[in-house]
């Protein structure tokens, strides 16, 4: 009977493709929007991910994220270094500045000052040049999003001169970094250079990045730092999560994406529900005849279930493939760089599809199950 059920559905091409479209569209909307949402809010932690060596981030107690921070006195660095279990500690500066390009344009940038000696604080990989270019005078390394934003005409950024706080800066490398939440241009330079590029008050140290000694637990050492210095210390994962939480709590992004995901669900229910109901209504005489002939209600349920399973699995696959295709197509766009589909998201879409089909299938089934076999004689 399941074969008959499938043929009943696929034989009605208009409704079959309508159902597939409904499920695929719904899946695409839910999966794609959730994927963008998750990747976007993860950008709130990009500053942490771009400094892979740091196991502990130490900051003023009022600081919350890599961008929402309060500068500390430079003595904080020595205080952290003195804590037992800290293998190394380096200064890290993060500040906003305006840069004047050679064409006279003004661009808002983020200046990141990394440790002069170890260059800890730089992204792991470079796209152009070498990390050691920072040892040359006035050197800065630009991130790849910055290249796109500032040199959209295809000009080679290497060797380009910039003006930062009346100081000369020369781009000598391109870092392969995770873009910031705002896709702002990021310039990496040595800590001592950064102090010149960014005007500021007496306290300039944004963070102290620390590594833990072998055999030590980062969380324990962080707690010890807090206890001994009175500063705030978070492990890499904690601080990354703090950046994500800040985006969730302080922007309308979750609400906006939530609305779109809900719309995807509602559109799915509407299209699939309507089409499924029409399909059942068109075939109600046939279902009635089957019931009269001797097909049990449980077999009818299995038949409609098989139809829903077929539509659901094909439509879901199309929707997820569509999302993957979208991500692939936009992977070259810097703002979408590094976007991936977390495995939980297709699972969420699958649950949504199951709910859509269960709801619409149940509504459609009710009319079949309530059809009296005797109605075929009327």
């Amino acid at each position: 009977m399941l074969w008959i059920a499938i043929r009943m559905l696929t034989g009605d091409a208009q409704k079959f493709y309508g159902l597939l479209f409904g499920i695929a569209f719904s899946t695409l909307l839910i999966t794609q929007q959730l994927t963008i949402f998750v990747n976007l809010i993860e950008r709130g932690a990009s500053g942490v991910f771009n400094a892979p060596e740091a196991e502990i981030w130490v900051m003023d107690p009022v600081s919350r994220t890599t961008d929402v921070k309060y500068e500390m006195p430079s003595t904080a660095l020595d205080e952290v270094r003195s804590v037992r279990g800290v293998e190394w500690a380096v200064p890290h500066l993060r500040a906003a500045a305006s840069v004047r390009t050679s064409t006279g344009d003004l661009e808002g940038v983020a200046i990141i000052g990394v440790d002069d000696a170890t260059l800890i604080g730089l992204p792991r990989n470079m796209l152009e040049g070498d990390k050691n270019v920072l040892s040359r005078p006035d050197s800065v390394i630009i991130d790849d999003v910055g290249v796109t934003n500032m040199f959209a005409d295809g000009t080679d950024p290497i060797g380009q001169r910039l003006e930062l706080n009346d100081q000369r800066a020369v781009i000598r490398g391109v870092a392969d970094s995770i873009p910031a939440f705002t896709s702002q241009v990021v310039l990496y330079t040595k800590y001592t250079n950064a102090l010149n590029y960014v005007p500021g008050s007496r306290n300039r140290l944004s963070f102290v990045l620390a590594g833990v000694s072998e055999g030590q637990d980062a969380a324990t050492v962080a707690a010890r730092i807090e206890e001994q210095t009175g500063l705030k210390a978070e492990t890499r994962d904690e601080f990354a999560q703090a950046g994500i939480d800040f985006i969730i709590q302080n922007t309308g992004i979750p609400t906006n994406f939530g609305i779109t995901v809900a719309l995807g669900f509602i559109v799915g229910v509407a299209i699939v529900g309507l089409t499924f109901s029409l399909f059942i209504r068109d075939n109600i005489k046939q279902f009635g005849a089957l019931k009269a002939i001797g097909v049990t209600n449980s077999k009818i349920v299995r038949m409609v279930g098989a139809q829903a399973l077929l539509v659901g699995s094909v439509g879901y696959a199309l929707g997820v493939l569509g999302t993957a295709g979208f991500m692939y197509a936009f992977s070259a766009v810097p703002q979408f760089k590094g976007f991936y589909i977390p495995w939980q998201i297709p699972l969420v879409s699958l649950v949504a599809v199951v709910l859509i089909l269960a709801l619409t299938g149940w509504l459609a089934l009710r009319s079949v199950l309530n059809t009296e076999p005797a109605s075929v004689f009327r």
Partner: protein
Amino acid sequence: MVKPTGEAAIHARGITRDFQAGQSTIRVLHGIDTEIRAGEMTFVVGESGSGKTTLISIMCGILWPTDGEVKVFGNDIYSLSDSDLVNFRLQNIGFIFQQYNLIPSIDVAANAAVPLIAQGMPIDKARARAKVLLDKLNIGDQADKLPNQLSGGQQQRVAIARALVHEPRLVVCDEPTAALDASSGRRVMDLLREVAVAPDRACIIVTHDNRIFDLADRILVLEDGRVTHDGTDMPHDH
């Protein structure tokens, strides 16, 4: 002409059926007592609203009577559990509907094989058995077509094949000639007599088509929910 065995295929006693219409209850059948014998082609005739469709629906186990008892080949069908009753219909009863109710998206052979498939027979085997019957009904060459590619008469034959493919002991036909012209109607009835009437099988035909009354072995006339005539011919006043 098949010789009737005289065995009672259906034994109905005191069949009453009420329907609710708003606040009022309408009695459609008034305590009908009758028997349908195997080997006979029995016509149930009457005006619209006389209760003939309700009567055969009850006789073939798809509509519960308000009161009364129906035995089909000795089985008190309304004392069976729901699932047993459904299974009883699947094994013992063949239906020919006025609108045919063929499944439009599966081919003729599969349509004819539906009862066998519902019984659990593999599709290929069921189709093969259906094709044998379709050949007998002279539409074997149409087996791979879809129902909408056939004429009304051919679709009727597919419906007949579907009703007989599982060799039921009771065949119930609802207005089999209603959608056909006179000559096509008689051909269908001749065909039904040839393939559906057997010594151990009863065939009930609900009709108000007076062009085919002469083909009946027995005629039950219903008026206002009561059997007013039971004989081999129509009464003269009809």
